[in-house]
């Protein structure tokens, strides 16, 4: 139990003294995961909504695959992205390996299925409610998609936050494609892994506490932005 006490005091002093390495690592974690979740949302939300609204051959198979990919192991995605971005690989010429961009790519691949799958569920429920009335009003498929995405924005926000949580918490993919290079691609999770491998368990735990607090702050911020603007009697 001494580790926990040491962890909390380590975490506290790191934050209070605005440890430079810590702030660098925190900013990079946020930057990579926020950009990744934005891109993944732009791709995943419309896919999820389209899966809910449209019927097309192979739809069921597509849904099964998207749902299954929610559970893709990050380390496997990291390996695949490494093979793609390696100099010996097809996209090597761009020199993206071991940069934050590679980490963003890996995280986008990781969380897009999650966001799409959750969005589909939300949209399906909404569409059940809205379909008749919208068709009566004469909606086009595209306008229905837009209306549903907007109307379901709060539930979709939860899907986006789930994606963010998964992205900022993963270590396998970013370790492989980022390389945990000091000052360049070192993020919270890879820092924690490094400190564990050095046996600095209290420090690692302290960093872990900071990461959790960070996640709470981000979620809190989102709810604050939702604000007092309640759209209905129900939450």
């Amino acid at each position, binding site marked *: 139990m001494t580790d926990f006490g040491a962890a909390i005091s380590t975490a506290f002093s790191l934050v209070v003294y605005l440890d430079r390495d810590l702030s660098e690592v925190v900013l990079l974690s946020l930057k990579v995961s926020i950009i990744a979740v934005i891109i993944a949302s732009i791709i995943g939300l419309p896919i999820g909504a389209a899966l809910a609204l449209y019927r097309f051959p192979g739809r069921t198979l597509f849904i099964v695959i998207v749902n299954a990919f929610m559970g893709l192991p990050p380390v496997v995605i990291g390996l695949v992205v490494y093979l793609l971005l390696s100099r010996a690989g097809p996209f090597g010429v761009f020199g993206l390996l071991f940069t934050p961009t590679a980490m963003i790519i890996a995280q986008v691949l990781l969380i897009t299925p999650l966001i799409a799958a959750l969005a589909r569920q939300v949209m399906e429920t909404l569409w059940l*409610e809205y379909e008749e009335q919208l068709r009566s009003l004469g909606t086009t498929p595209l306008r229905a998609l837009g209306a549903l995405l907007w*109307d379901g924005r709060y539930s979709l926000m939860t899907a986006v936050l789930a994606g963010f949580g998964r992205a900022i918490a993963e270590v396998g993919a970013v370790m492989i494609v980022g390389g945990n290079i000091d000052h360049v691609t070192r993020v919270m999770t890879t820092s924690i892994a490094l400190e564990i491998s050095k046996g600095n368990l209290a420090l690692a735990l302290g960093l872990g506490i900071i990461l959790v607090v960070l996640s709470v702050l981000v979620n809190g911020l989102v709810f604050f932005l939702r604000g007092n603007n309640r759209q209905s*009697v129900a939450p």
Partner: protein
Amino acid sequence: MILADAASILPLELKNVSLHTGQKRLIKDISCTLEAEDITVIIGPNGAGKSLLLRLCHGLLTPTSGSITWHGAAGRKPSLFQAMVFQRPVMLRRSVRANIDFALSLRKVPRHLRHDLIEEALQRAGLNRFAKTPALVLSFGEQQRLALARSWALRPQVLFLDEPTASIDPAATHVIEEVILAMQKEGTKIIMCTHDLGQARRLANEIMFIHRGRILEKSNAGTFFDGPKNDLAEAFLRGELLWWHRRELTPP
């Protein structure tokens, strides 16, 4: 811009329309013609097929066999001239005014015309003070009035209503009935179904009695309520025919 002033898409003719799902035959060989200017009220016991019939006419369902023809359509899309109010109002998570605006934009009404249409519709339904309120904060009755206002703004030639006041208190019901009558006066053909025989008496010019997927009687409202020709209809008016059928009364 869709106006009731444009050439009417009516009359609506159903010829041998049937609707099956799997094994069940829900609508059985219905044929009838609906003309403009009447308020047609469809009545019948639960499960008779009233809602299904409305949806078939409006185009939300496709008949398994038979044809549904708008004889006045003349190459235009009939759905553009129709609107429907459902038993439970369906509103988007946005303001009252925005909901009507959305419907108008779907019908491609030019922006500069929308403001007046929305104002007028809200006025008629008595909802002006709620213009900026989130629609879902409104009570059920108020939302249903909004649904009606939304339909009004579209200036439909035909308005379908599926038991619009089924779950609404008498005061709100009264307002809604007033709006329906006002719309009819301005030229909208009303086709509605209801459980409320009192409402049917108040509003209908024409009555269609549906039972187990068939039209058993279609006649002028006054005539019908004085004494329906069909004995099942008569039983229904007496309050005896609710949702089960008595074998001996089943028509061949």
